[in-house]
């Protein structure tokens, strides 16, 4: 492979990570507030279809993205209402919505299937884009890819460096303490769930208007990505930078699957496309196994020096979810 092709491929990895980043960081926000939105997979399909349809009808890309965010927010509102107000299991509601929104997307998207439509064009940044190597890699993208870079920093800054961000952490870790501090826990949870849903909802139009432009129904190749996004959120340990590493790593693996394809003519293409999934299980195993009791027990039998090294690796990999994730909050308990 030539250097140019490699550079071009890596640049593609960055842009195809954009929707994943929006999904993962949106989900990270609502999970930090204590609400997990398992509807992701269907929600992205519905917002991809809806965003494409809106921009097809109006001719405006902006309205397409807006529609995607609105769909994400609406689905998140249902999750919030069912889990916060009606105290139903977040997993149950999320799963049903994941299935329902997927079928809604296929049903409603039927008339616009395969239609040519608007798509986002590249906006190379003048000056910066002509820097060798880095110019191609970082500064020859479309607006959504640049936004995805920004989103990583913004969400980190908000969560770690601002006062409301600290309160957000409290909502998921210790809602009672947040309540004592004067936070209206359930109202804030509503707010963050809807905000997270709107951000994640943008992932849909990012696909249908940029990364995989158009709507092709069941062969759009988007079914499944929402579940990947949810597992990257776990891998990311609810920290924006780590989540970003997960998203880029996943896209890199997918790209490598495509590149390696011609080298392995006997392996059907579908097999290489799923190669990231066993790795996903493996990474989830690595980030969670430190929490298992038997690991601690067997580690205690090892010599001190070895034990300390292994423990260090496990701690570095380990990710602990917000303590009150999935639990309803009642102030008068």
């Amino acid at each position, binding site marked *: 492979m030539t250097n140019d092709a490699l550079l071009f491929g890596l640049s593609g990895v960055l842009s195809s990570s954009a929707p994943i980043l929006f999904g993962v960081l949106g989900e990270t926000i609502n999970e930090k507030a204590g609400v997990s939105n398992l509807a992701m997979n269907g929600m992205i399909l519905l917002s991809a279809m809806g965003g494409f349809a809106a921009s097809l009808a109006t001719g405006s890309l902006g309205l397409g993205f807006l529609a995607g965010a609105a769909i994400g927010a609406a689905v998140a509102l249902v999750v919030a209402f069912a889990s916060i107000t009606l105290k139903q299991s977040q997993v149950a509601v999320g799963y*049903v919505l994941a299935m329902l929104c997927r079928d809604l997307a296929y*049903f409603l998207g039927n008339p616009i299937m395969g239609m040519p439509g608007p798509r986002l064009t590249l906006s190379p940044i003048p000056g910066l884009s002509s820097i060798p190597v880095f110019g191609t890699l970082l500064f020859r993208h479309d607006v959504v890819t640049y936004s995805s870079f920004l989103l990583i920093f913004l969400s980190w800054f908000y969560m770690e460096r601002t006062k409301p961000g600290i309160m957000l952490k409290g909502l998921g870790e210790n809602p009672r303490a947040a309540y004592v501090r004067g936070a209206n826990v359930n109202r804030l949870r509503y707010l963050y769930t809807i905000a997270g849903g709107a951000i994640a909802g943008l992932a849909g139009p990012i696909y249908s208007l940029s990364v995989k432009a158009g709507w092709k129904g069941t062969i759009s190749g988007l079914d499944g990505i929402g*579940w990947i996004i949810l597992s990257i959120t776990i891998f990311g340990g609810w920290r924006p930078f780590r989540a970003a590493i997960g998203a880029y790593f996943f896209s890199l693996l997918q790209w490598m699957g495509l590149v390696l394809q011609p080298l392995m003519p006997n392996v*059907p293409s579908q097999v290489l496309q799923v190669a990231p999934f066993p790795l996903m299980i493996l990474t989830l*195993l690595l980030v969670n196994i430190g929490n*298992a009791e038997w690991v601690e027990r067997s580690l205690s039998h090892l010599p001190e020096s070895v034990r300390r090294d292994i423990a260090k690796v496990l701690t570095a990999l380990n990710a602990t979810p917000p303590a009150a994730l999935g639990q309803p909050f009642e102030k008068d308990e």
Partner: protein
Amino acid sequence: MLDDRKTRILFGSGSVLVALALTTAIVAATGNNPLQAYANIIQGATGSPNVAANVLVSWVPLALATAGLLFTFTGGLWNIGIEGQITLGAIFCTWALRSLQNTALSPGAIIAVAVAAGMLGGMLWALLAGALKTFGGVNEIFGGLGLNFVATALNLWLIFGPWKRPGVASMSGTLPFEPELWMPTISVQSRLAPVPLVLAALALVTAFILLRGSHFGLRLKAVGKNPRAAYLLGIPTWQHMLLSFALCGAFAGLAGAVQVSAVYHRLIPSISSGYGYTGLMVAMLVNYSPVFAGPVALFFAALGVGSIQLPIVLKLDSSLAGVIQGFLVLFVLMGNGLRLKLLRRKRGTL
């Protein structure tokens, strides 16, 4: 008052009405006649003995999946990996049929061994998800989903690789087995085989007996409600979780084996056909009750089969079946939540 039978039925039917109203509105919004669409679905599911038989053919894997899921749900587990467990059941069944087809064994014995192999395959795949959950701390939803994709890849690799048709491999699956290795159907033209029907009914009865009338069911329920408390009460917690995975996997594997030996007579790429995912919806809709699982699975199967003709007759996508199913489960879930909320409020004021 809000907890009595009458109110439950009232809220339940109210939820169903809301779900139907919303579906109707959505179909109307696409510029189609909702009544015509419903009539088409009903016609497509009951219009001829042939389509009615197809509904039963589709009920078998759905009922088997739902029966299995009742165990994992009782144990407090979300076995989304069931889709892969069905696939592995189909793969193991195909493998057994392929290895035994040229031996001296009688066709009946070969089919029996192959079905048992399918159950084993589903069980092993489920235990993998269970072990990841109990020993590795990997949430069963994500472990299961990952394993689903792996199962699909394994299936495709077999169809396009080692088990490909002589000549060229294709998406239409492996070479069909000889007709004597097909499970016997009620008549030559029909796809409906009586043995799988009986097996699915037996699976539901087994689930009912074990969950409602056995010590095991009671302990599993305790584990599902509160694993920590169950553990302190001396119930072997992780063993019960793994056992529920194994049972669910065996039923799912049976469903896969039936699809291979009685329906398709070969291994095809989408052998699990989403029955596992739909089974999760059925189990949720019946609130994990083994009594209603059978009839509701039949209704869902009828929706699925009935909507197949929609794209041809009305230019509507067949995913309308999934839309109806999704709205039903969503609103029944929310209706129940609303009822309990009103109940809590009422008790609070007393």
